[in-house]
């Protein structure tokens, strides 16, 4: 009379096996998804606060080759700031799937936009830290860091470089 209970046990074991074998490969994606949701909004909020602290005085960055005020430049220095950012695993996965369909890949747009803002904000901060009034003639440069074929390290990322001439009146 032990047969029904033992077959129940077998079913339970099979179900457990199936659930586990599905869950274990998904675990890194799950960790990545939760990690992304906890980490990235926090960092973006910090960046927004840093930007707002500078926004009160008006933007010091410009792509013009001469200061708009026409004042004489007393001191200058070329400043460059860069940042390398990477989409998280889950963002790469979602982006990869979306790119099959074409159109805008929103997850990647956000990452590149974020790094560009970060690079520009660092330029503002570095100019302010060295006592410069304005940064003129700024250029933004973007590069992708591709993974090496066959290598263990699968890191990919995007580098944004912001540079310009910082000036003192």
């Amino acid at each position, binding site marked *: 009379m032990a047969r029904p209970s033992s077959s129940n046990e077998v079913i339970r074991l099979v179900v457990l096996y199936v659930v586990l074998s599905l869950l274990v490969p998904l675990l890194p994606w799950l*960790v990545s998804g939760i990690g992304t949701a906890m*980490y*990235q909004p926090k960092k973006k909020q910090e960046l927004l606060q840093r930007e707002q602290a500078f926004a009160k005085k008006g933007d010091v960055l410009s792509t013009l080759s001469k200061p708009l005020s026409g004042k*004489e430049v007393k001191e200058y220095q070329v400043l460059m700031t860069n940042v390398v*950012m990477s989409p998280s*695993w889950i963002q790469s996965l979602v982006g990869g799937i979306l790119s099959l369909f074409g159109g805008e890949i929103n997850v990647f747009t956000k990452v590149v936009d974020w790094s560009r803002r970060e690079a520009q904000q660092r330029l503002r901060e570095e100019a302010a830290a060295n006592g410069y009034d304005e940064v003129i003639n700024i250029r933004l440069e973007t*590069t992708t860091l591709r993974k090496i*074929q066959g290598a263990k390290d*699968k890191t990919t990322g995007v*580098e944004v470089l912001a540079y310009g001439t910082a000036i003192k009146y």
Partner: protein
Amino acid sequence: MQPQVNIPFSNTETIPGMTITQMMGVVTGSTVRAKNVFKDIGAGLKNMVGGELKAYTELLQESRNEALYRMLVDAQARGANAVVNVRFATSSVAGGAAELLAYGTAVVVQ
């Protein structure tokens, strides 16, 4: 550390407060770096949640300074005393390496 090359350089078309008297041609400085050589275990883990990879930010910054330094050495070798209109460019070369290039116009200023 690299020895300092004391040549003023600027991103703009002129060196403020000086006049250009002679042009010495385009000078370049470049370096190719592969990120795997300076591989950092932290960067691989950081990739999981995304965001900045500090190790690579610093690596590229150092490499770019090296490229800039080579450009200034080139300018000095040509007898220029300033470099104007400096630009930076980066490109991916095969095998996951990145080339960092700095170029500009070497000039004599007074």
